[in-house]
């Protein structure tokens, strides 16, 4: 299992194709925070997102923030939510907007494997609940769109040494979650026989 450093947004698809399920990744550059209501607005209500998502790294988050007098937002506690609820947006995020990476916790079900392979996307697993650490890796909240969805807005964060992340699903059709479930289902048969 290799370790990589990737800067987002990415222009070169090779940056994504070199990543393999199980690899460790640290991220630099800019990432975009997104959540259930943000994606419902984009895809179910058909409203164009006011941020460029091409080559982007999306983080499943609804941050805890403090609004400053000048209208900007200061981080308080930023962590990551469960991804599985939002798996149906994977294909259109890649196909319509050119998103390259989705990061969350808990993994995506197998529905994500095919579109990620076809569109050259990866799923990064972060450690859920490790928000105190994650907050220190977010240098600044640079932009906020759709404030009326607070805290499920579109957020642009500048990050430094964001991670460690694990490649949960790569762009070659491999998913750690699929493999772990397949092994666990086999194991369950053995355990049931022992009960």
């Amino acid at each position: 299992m290799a370790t990589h450093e990737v800067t987002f947004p990415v222009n070169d698809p090779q940056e994504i194709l070199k990543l393999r399920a199980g690899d460790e990744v640290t991220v630099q550059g800019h990432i975009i925070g997104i959540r259930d209501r943000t994606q419902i607005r984009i895809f179910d209500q058909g409203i164009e997102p006011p941020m460029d998502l091409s080559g982007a790294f999306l983080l499943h988050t609804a941050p805890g923030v403090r609004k400053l007098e000048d209208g900007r937002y200061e981080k308080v506690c930023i962590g990551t939510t469960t991804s599985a609820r939002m798996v149906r947006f994977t294909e259109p995020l890649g196909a319509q907007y050119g998103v390259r990476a989705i990061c969350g916790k808990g993994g995506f079900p197998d529905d994500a494997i095919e579109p990620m392979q076809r569109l050259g996307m990866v799923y990064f697993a972060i450690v859920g609940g490790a928000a105190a650490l994650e907050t220190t890796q977010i240098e600044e909240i640079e932009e906020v769109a759709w404030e009326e969805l607070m805290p499920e807005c579109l957020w642009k964060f500048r990050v430094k040494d964001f991670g460690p992340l694990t490649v949960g699903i790569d762009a070659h059709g491999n998913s750690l979650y699929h493999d772990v479930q397949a092994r666990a289902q086999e194991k369950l048969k053995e355990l049931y026989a022992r009960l």
Partner: protein
Amino acid sequence: MTTLVDTDLYHAVEDAAAYLYVWALKDIPQDLRDALEDAAGKETSVPGQRVLSTILKNVQVADSEKNLVCQDTGIAVYTCRVGEHFPLHPARIYAALKAGTERATIEHPLRSNAVHTLTRENTGPNTGHRLPIVHWEFVPDWDGLDVKCVPKGSGSENMSFLKMCVPADGVKGIKQFVLESIVGAGGKPCPPGIVGVGIGGSADYAMYLAKEAIARPIGTRNPDPHVAQLEEELFELLNETGIGPMGLGGDVTVLNCHIEHADTHMTLNPVAVNYQCWAARRASAHVAPDGSVEYDREF
């Protein structure tokens, strides 16, 4: 005079609620820290080790930065044990807990998660219709109040399962349901955590008991030896599933399994599973009738 006592006590309970909510979110209990260290020592998979060392680092950063361990401030759930001679009525205790939850949310500030369940519009600073949730116990021949706060995030609460097994399913049915629930949950509830199981009673009471179980100090055993044995067996079986830290595969899937039980109807065999994430937050306070408050981890 009665009014004055009532007012002082009301504010003491409000202060306690506000303090407990934030304390629980920032500073996880020592028994949990020890269990996470043990887990890191046992785990052999590479992604699993990466997850556990990140968790331990995160707990340290939360201490040093005085930040929340996890951003999900959850739903504030309180359990109150009210002495029959405690001089503040439970209706006022509830109002004080609600006011304390709101104050903590606004002053810290904490992320407010509360929404109307149909419109999904925010209903207030972590409060709303029937929020916070408060469970009550009443204690005869006593004049004190114990308050425990267990804020529970949605990642783990979404992984709650209920099955009305039939008596012929027996203990085997209970074990199978717990195993299939935890395997099915995979990485979603932020493993390794505490698996709370409620057995017996009725459908609603079984889930309540599962929730009680996750709030116990980690690794404590049910006083009923039959139940304690089931806790040990399930703890071992669950760690054979290979789900591992954050569902990425590994040796440590759960930190422990706690079970609470109630006697039930002869034709019922309810099993409820309530998962508690690795950041198993809890904090308690004892309020004396004079309004003095002592903070502690347990009741």
